[in-house]
Structure formats: structure tokens, C-alpha cells
């Protein structure tokens, strides 16, 4: 049951009163935001003149509630861990307190499941012996030994690049080659830039082309999926022939 305020009075009320009126029947620990928005829109529709201040503050309150709720849900799903892998104690404490408090709220008399009664059983736990502690130590130290074994580094799988010549120099050299190839044609197939065609050369040329493309000296296109790469040297780039 919502708090009954006449539409006239509600229209004159400040935003807090509006909010209180709209959520009067809701669990303060569990505000149904969708329902609140629905009610608020109905409230706005009922207003003769739009008081912009009211919806503005409502949006603020709504977003704060949403933020609070999403943070709580996030925490409960085990996110937001600190560097230690521990859930932030304060947050957990606050959540625990909130949950505890919620537990004191009267529960609805809805049938959910038969009443649960745990049987009274005895679960004796004997003390751990010193021998077991020693066994545990042996296991822990064995684990450490395994960890200490140097892991074989994966073979250097980086891009094999020709040594010696700096990348920018190679790119410039490639650009000069491109200019020599242009010779009236606008488009040059990528394969024309290769001599050996081994993977190392393909990767090296491709990287250089990407660099030239980024500098605006070439335009790369590929008409078909996985098709030939077409290199075009735009007119403005041909003019920088002599420049570095």
C-alpha cells in the first residue's frame, strides 16, 4: 500500500516527500528500482506543469540507489577484491551487518519448502598430531621445490627481424623501393615487395608497411578476405621522394 497523498499535495511536495511517498511500502533494504521508476513516471505524467527540479533530484537519488545496489551485488558476487585476494573487510562487515539486520525483518508467510531441521549429530574432531604437522611440512616443502624449478622459457617466438639495420631505416628503404615500383601504376601487390618470401621477410615487410601507412605515406587495402594486400602510394606521398 502506498502512502496516500492527494495528487495536488504530491505536486507541491518536495522531492524527498515524493520519494518517501513512492517507496513507502518498499523494503528499505531492497528498493525495487524498476517499480520506483514506473511509479515516478506515473507521478510525472500526473503533474500538470513539469517542475524540472523534482525529476532532476529524483534522477540523482535513483542513480545513487542504483550505484549502491550494484556495488552490493558486485561485492556479493565476490568481486572487488584487494591485492591480497581478500574481500575488503569494511565492505564485508557492512554487508554482513545489513544482511543481519535484514534477517530481523518479518518474513512473508509464503510457503517455500518444508521446514528444515538439522539432526543433532556429533562431529568430533580430534587434535592434529605432531607427526601430521611434520607430514604437512614435508608436503609444503616439496611444493616449494617444484615451484622453484626454473620453468623452461618458451622459445623466443617474437617476430624475427633482420638484425643490424634500424626499423625506421628499413621503412625508408622500403618506401624508396615502392616509389621505384610505382612508375605510372597506382597499385602495387604486396608480393612484389618480397624477395625470399619466407615468413620472417613477410612479417618484416608487413610491419614496415604498417609504419608507412601510419605515416600516411601508403594506403593499404585488401579487396578479398585473406586476399592479396594492395599498396598504393598516394600522390602527396610521391612528392616527399627526396625528403627523409
Amino acid at each position, binding site marked *: 500500500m502506498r502512502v496516500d497523498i492527494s495528487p495536488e499535495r504530491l505536486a507541491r511536495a518536495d522531492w524527498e516527500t515524493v520519494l518517501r511517498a513512492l517507496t513507502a511500502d518498499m*523494503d528499505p*533494504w*531492497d528498493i525495487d528500482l524498476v517499480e520506483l521508476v514506473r511509479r515516478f513516471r506515473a507521478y510525472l505524467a500526473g503533474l500538470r506543469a513539469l517542475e524540472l527540479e523534482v525529476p532532476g533530484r529524483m534522477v540523482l537519488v535513483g542513480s545513487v540507489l542504483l550505484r549502491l545496489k550494484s556495488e*552490493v*551485488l558486485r561485492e*556479493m*558476487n565476490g568481486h572487488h577484491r584487494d591485492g591480497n585476494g581478500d574481500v575488503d573487510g569494511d565492505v564485508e562487515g557492512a*554487508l*554482513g551487518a*545489513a*544482511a543481519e539486520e*535484514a*534477517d530481523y525483518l518479518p*518474513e512473508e508467510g*509464503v510457503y*517455500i*519448502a*518444508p*521446514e*528444515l*531441521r*538439522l*539432526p*543433532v*549429530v*556429533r*562431529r*568430533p*574432531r*580430534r587434535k592434529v598430531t605432531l607427526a601430521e604437522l611434520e607430514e604437512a611440512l614435508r608436503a609444503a616443502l616439496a611444493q616449494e621445490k617444484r615451484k622453484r624449478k626454473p620453468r623452461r622459457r618458451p622459445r623466443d617466438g617474437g617476430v624475427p627481424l633482420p638484425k643490424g639495420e634500424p626499423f625506421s631505416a628499413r621503412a625508408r628503404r622500403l618506401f624508396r623501393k615502392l616509389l621505384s615500383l610505382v612508375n605510372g601504376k597506382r597499385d602495387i601487390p604486396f608480393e612484389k615487395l618480397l624477395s625470399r618470401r619466407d615468413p620472417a621477410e613477410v612479417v618484416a615487410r608487413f610491419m614496415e608497411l604498417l609504419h608507412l601507412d601510419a605515416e600516411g605515406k601508403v594506403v593499404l587495402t585488401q579487396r578479398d578476405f585473406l586476399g592479396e594486400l594492395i599498396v598504393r602510394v598516394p600522390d602527396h606521398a610521391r612528392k616527399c621522394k627526396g625528403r627523409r
Partner: protein
Amino acid sequence: MRGNVKAAVEAALFVATRPLTLEELARGLRFPEDEVYAALEGIAAELEAGGKPYRLVRKGGGYILELREEYADLVRPFAPGGDIPEPVLRTLALIAYRGPIKQAEVVRIRGQRAYAHVKDLVKRGFVRARKEGATKILEVTEEFLEYFGLESPKDFRAPRD
């Protein structure tokens, strides 16, 4: 020595969480079966005569120390799981009877507080949560059933009074 056997058998019974067979006791403690049996008789009689709230019972072919029925309700809060608050117990009941059940469904029925309940129950090892896409599927663990000596969740329905 007689006294020795009796104390040893009683020590084993004291730490065991399941019924121990005569053969098992004899083998584990290295006493002849007849001596172990005599010790068991002695222990049972002593507990009976001493007006103890627990007694030695035969169960599933073995022997186990068990609380007398009439003390169950009195000491329930001190027993394992006895400290589970009523609302959490209700959430557990829901998961036990309807599981595997989506966490979202549990929350829909039990409210937002169910998130904290599930967390508590998972921590106690009574409930298992597995990710399935964006949601979690909840069910009671074997550990839970075993812990309370139950075959199936149906076994802990409260007697209707």
C-alpha cells in the same frame, strides 16, 4: 590389560564420526575381537548406569556413541550447524528441496538477503555454487548430507507436529 582395551575402544568411539565395526576396532587397536566386544559391553553398561546423556548404539553393523533422543532439542543450538540462523536455514531448505536451483530464483523467493545466506552456506561447505553463464546454480553438497548422516535431502524434513 582389560582397562587398556576399554579406554582404547572408548577413545576410538569418541573420535569416530561413523559406526565402527568390531573387526575394524580389533584391527585398528590390535586387540582380539572378543576383548574388544567385552569392552564395548562394558562401555555400554557404564554409560547406562552413569545416567549419561549419550549411549553406545549399534548402527549399520557398527558401534557409535549417540546422544539420547530426549536431549536433542535442548542441545541443538550447540550442535554443528545449530548456530545457523533461522533465515539462513530457510534458504538452505529451499536449496535442499528445489536444488539444483538458480541463485536468481532463490533471491526472487528469499529476497536480497539470500546473497549473504548463500555466501554463508558455501563457506560452511553446505552449498555448492557453479557458474552457468551469467547466473549461478546452487545445490547442497554431499558433504552436507554426509555431515548430518543423511542419504538424501528428503531425510531432514522436520516431523510435522
